[in-house]
């Protein structure tokens, strides 16, 4: 994505942000819609469009779990592993998903077909509905048993991504 596209996206929303630094977030989120993750060029374009240094932009991107500086699957499934969810069995949900997608049980990862990424999340604020899962930085759902979680992932595998729907 280039700086002009990002500027065009930011212009209508600029006035909503008192501190221009805050514009880096929507800019990154928008830049990410193109490839599903952020490349060096995307971050350089965000830097150009917002006037901050590329390294600052990258530091922001690296801070947030839903901004990806490496390629991810078409759908990203974040499993809460914080205390409440853990007590309600999120470790089993995690294990089941990693097993099903054939990814590393410690760090998660992306399935071989490139459709699904499994990653850890810290408390998603859905403790009353643990074990919970967030898909693509959108709504959080729960509670899940391991079987239900696998079923959800299978549905996600078939369903078009939001970006695919928009186009």
């Amino acid at each position, binding site marked *: 994505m280039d700086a002009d596209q990002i500027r065009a996206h930011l212009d209508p929303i600029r006035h909503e942000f008192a501190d221009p630094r805050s514009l880096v977030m929507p800019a990154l989120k928008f830049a990410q819609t193109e490839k599903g993750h952020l490349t060096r060029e995307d*971050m350089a374009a965000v830097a150009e469009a917002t006037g901050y*240094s590329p390294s600052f932009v*990258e*530091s922001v991107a690296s*801070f947030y779990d839903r901004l990806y500086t490496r390629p991810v699957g078409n759908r990203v499934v974040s499993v809460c592993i914080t205390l409440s969810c853990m007590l309600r069995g999120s470790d089993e949900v995690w294990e089941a998903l990693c097993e099903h997608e054939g990814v590393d049980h410690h760090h998660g990862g992306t399935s071989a077909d490139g459709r699904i990424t499994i990653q850890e999340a810290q408390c998603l604020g859905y403790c009353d509905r643990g074990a919970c899962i967030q898909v693509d930085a959108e709504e959080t759902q729960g509670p899940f048993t391991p079987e239900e979680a696998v079923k959800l992932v299978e549905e996600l595998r078939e369903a078009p991504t939001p970006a695919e729907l928009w186009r």
Partner: protein
Amino acid sequence: MAEYAPVDLTVENQVEFELDGRKVTAPAGTMLADACYAHGVEIPIFCYEPRLGPPIGACRMCLVEVEGMRGLQTACSTPVAPDMVVRTTTDAVKEAQDGVLEVLLANHPLDCPVCDKGGECPLQDRTFKFGPGQSRFVEPKRHHPKPLELSDRIALDRERCIACFRCVRFSQEVAQDGELTMQARGALSEITTFSGDAYAGRFSGNVIDLCPVGALTSIPYRFVSRPWDVQNTPSICGLCPVGCNTELTVREGRTKRVTGRPDPNSAVEEGWLCDTGRWAYDASWSDDRITGAIVREATGDRVAGLEDAVDAAAALLRGRTVGILAGTGATVEEAGIAADLAAGALPGAIVARMGIPGGALAGLRALPGAQLGDIDDADVVVVVGGDPAAQQPIVELRLRKARRFGATVTGCGPRPHLIESLGAFTRTVPGALADGVAAVAQAIAGATLPVVLWDEADLAAEPAAAAALADAIAANDAARQIELGADVNGSGLRALGLPTADLVLDAVREGRVDALLLVHAEPLDAPGRTAWAAALQDFAGPVVAIATHPTATTERADLVLPALTMWEQDGTLVSMNGRVQRLRPGARGPEGAAAGWELLVALAHRLGAPPPYRTAAAAFRAVTAGHAAFAGITSDTAGILGVPLAAPAQVDGASAPAPAQGEGLPLVATREVYGGTHARRSASLASTAAEAAARIAPATAEAQWVRDGDRIVLRSPAGDSGLLTVRVEEGWPEGAVFAPLGAPGAPTEGALPPDMAPVLVQVVRVEAG
């Protein structure tokens, strides 16, 4: 210690507060950490560093108890208040210090035995002094492949980082290179550049001095030494006319490292160094260093011992009328002793200095001067001509700081440069700097406390502009000026009253001298080298050169006496704005070499007129006696931090240059300290070496029939330049050629006259690119 801000306990407006049961005072607004330090109480800190701007309270190391405030307070960000009751040694404070250190060390590898910082590490020291004796942390620590090369010169051991953000703040706020950031979060946080690119700053080395742990270390110094195996000597940098105060780390007779002073000189560099000043020291043992005397004989070169060589020099010069040239980097002692030779050992000798005549600058130099530190207080800072970021690097940080403090930065000049991004600048047509001065005069007039920085070379070349600027400064009583000098010790040579080199050049041409003695002078490598080459072509007399590295000049010499570099010798340099500062010998220097001043003293002995001094300090006293600029100044009064000259370093009578000579395009020359001569003599800086490029704007290049990559010669009435590579670049003003001074073989210097008077050049294409 540098880490705490200096506190003046004598100024008006002191606030009284209680510190551990004592009644003490500090000026209103002082941070508790600094106030406590001033009263002998050390509050441990890590992230706090007053030079980096407002405190950020990132590390929580400095917690203290303040009566009436809930919880503990960070002493680095809590200003003193009247009747505040502060306790720094209570159980609660002790427990907090233990806790913070335990957390900081939780992921720290504790590899002190193999860490360069060991022995001079704030984390180590403060853990011993304030930390718990034991860690309860038994879990595995984080590991990283190590070290990571942040650049050719800086290594990063990520697991040692305690996330204090000092390096990031330096990069983002002080140098404003936007390079370093902290990425990721929590235990995974790490310092990095964009996508792991090499850290490309020109002040990058300062983060090594700033890092309170061994996370950022100098690659050239890696595993070289331990703090208890070295001597640290306060000295100064002699690579550009700023004269930053440095500390030399010396081991086994060699300078192993140059750092900023632990106690910065706030009037000059404030503890920062540019990367050239920090890493160029290995030039003192570069492959081409002259380590023994070279005697040129019909049968070839012979390397001689020092004794023999000085004898030979005396034999060559005895009974002759000698032209003596002091180079722009010669110390006050070297130049002064050389001048003394004319009065005794070498009667009738004509002594002169290299560098810019600058007769037109008398008016400017007589105006009230300022130190670089005074820029902090200015409301308006005006930069006239020059390119301080390239030519006097540390000035860039001063100007960025002024901007951060809210000062207006403005100026004018013929070159595009980095400082221009800090404010409104007027781009002047080369030769018409006076128009720019007219534009900035208003800013000077309307300011409460203006500081004007003016470029020696640019204003010397345009007397009308110099006169107009002097008037504009004189019109505001509060205005002060800082000369952005061209030469390392130009001020020192002028303060000694030495006349300009054209005196010797004319004498050579007219056969009035029949020998030459060059004291760090390189007439065949300096502006005017074409004229000098012509004059020396038929010069039959002997040429004796005192030098450290080979140049075209030493090639021409009949005898080369090997001298010491600025990291090895005692001496005095006067900075561009007239600050007298001492070089102190760190390293010993090669066996076969001696300090330039000692060589000259030995020479005087051999010539039968021994001077009455044996030390550099005594020589300084003797050679500066009778010069008003040095009145009352001795090596002792100059001390560790230096003192300003007693009167402006000014010589009369030097001619002001005529309007630009020749036909074609004006040549605008810039001395690039970063990537220039020093980068080519220093292995550590080799990767920064800049090409010898003539920069030309697109339309001008087209009009001159040259393209990017072409190799050209610039032809002026002063002579031909050496080969330069054309770089056609947007952003450079049309209608001029911009070229560097100090490139290998001194190409640009060939087209310039000895007095650096302005010239117009024709672009002659030699090879297509």
